[in-house]
């Protein structure tokens, strides 16, 4: 019967979860409603706004365009997984705070999750590269300028930290 629940097991932010879900349950809704991780936001439900972006096996994807059952055996990272510890922010989150790169914050988790792999692959991005990386995420509040500044600031901060660690 089509409403049968299917068992899934997956890792989210380093923690293993087991659940029984309807096949039609979207990954975005699974994260938000079954796991209570409401940092992943639902904007358009057809893949264009980017608010639902999460990491699926370390790659940014639209969680509104995946079924929870497809995540069986896979690893998900959401915005809740960025913080390195209680009361601490990831350098990218810190940079967003510093440059006022968020207002309502609705687009922010999707943008952060898009940028994490981008910065890993491009540790010293140009402004043009940052703008291009952001082109799959819509923001209605900020006009993007401070977001770009945040990314450049975070890139510098993270590079310095990496340099200091290497010494």
């Amino acid at each position: 019967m089509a409403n049968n629940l299917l068992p899934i097991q997956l890792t989210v932010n380093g923690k293993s979860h087991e659940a029984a879900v309807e096949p039609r349950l979207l990954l975005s809704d699974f994260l938000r409603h079954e796991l209570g991780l409401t940092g992943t936001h639902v904007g358009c439900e057809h893949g264009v706004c980017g608010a639902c972006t999460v990491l699926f096996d370390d790659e940014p994807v639209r969680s509104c365009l995946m079924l929870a059952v497809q995540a069986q055996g896979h690893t998900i990272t959401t915005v809740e997984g960025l913080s390195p510890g209680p009361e601490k922010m990831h350098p990218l989150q810190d940079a967003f705070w510093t440059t006022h790169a968020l207002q309502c914050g609705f687009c922010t988790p999707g943008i952060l999750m898009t940028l994490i792999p981008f910065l890993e692959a491009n540790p010293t991005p140009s402004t043009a590269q940052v703008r291009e990386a952001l082109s799959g995420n819509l923001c209605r509040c900020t006009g993007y300028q401070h977001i770009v500044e945040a990314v450049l600031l975070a890139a510098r901060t993270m590079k310095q930290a990496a340099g200091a660690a290497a010494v």
Partner: protein
Amino acid sequence: MKPPPFEYVAPVDFVGALDAASKYGGEAKLLAGGQSLIPAMNFRVAQPAVLIDLNRIPDLEYVHRHPSGGLAVGAMTRHRRLEFDPQVKQSVPLLAEAVPFIAHPQIRNRGTLGGSLAHADPAAELPVIALALQARMRCASTRGERWIEAADFFQGMFTTVLSPDEILAEVVFPAPPQHQGYAFEEFARRKGDYALMGVACLIGLDAAGSCDQARLVFLNAGDGPMLAVEAAAMLQGSPVSEDSALAAAVHASEKEIEPLGNLHATPAFQRHLARILARRAILAASERTRQTSTA
């Protein structure tokens, strides 16, 4: 909105997928990348009773040299793989050129070559590239296997020759002739948006510098990838010049495409874009004949 209930089947090998497709036929939709199907299901414009998920089948994703010298690509190969695999850039550079125009990286991480071709959206890049390159599609069912040329594969808006029980398994891109120039041009309001118009162009020059092969295929210009045969013929027999490129572009944009218009562009504007992009692509492809040589 959310999708209505459906039966979910996730075969772990291709035989299982063929069996499921045979069993459910027209009641089922195949889930490849899901970047077009899931939005349709979320809006309930698509309501398949059964979803056959192809994502657990390991041997449908690959890129390797075909014995003929071209490239064989598994149908579940992600766009992102095509974007970065050096074999693609080396063997079929037009494909590598076009893939970055597909939506955004987040979409390209999941979207697949086979899914895009089988979905046959007239505004999609890959059907245009497949037609330009004269790719061949291996289509499989429990009844057997058949190869379909790109020219015969696309039947209309969101329609291909695939039967309800058939699965596109592989796409072979033939080796381009030596020194063939290529270009892909597309115009969208914002990067990653659906293109309002696009064109793929292939140009070959003979030893005397005269154009002896030309191929021009338009995107979002009708109910499928639109091949401008007459414009291509106009280019042949003489060197490519600003004048010949413009003449061919004008003819193609006025006589050989049927753009339908949309929220962001009237058909007249689409024709205007087609003329400009085709002219640019013809000149760029011609310039590239001097630069390319296939390995």
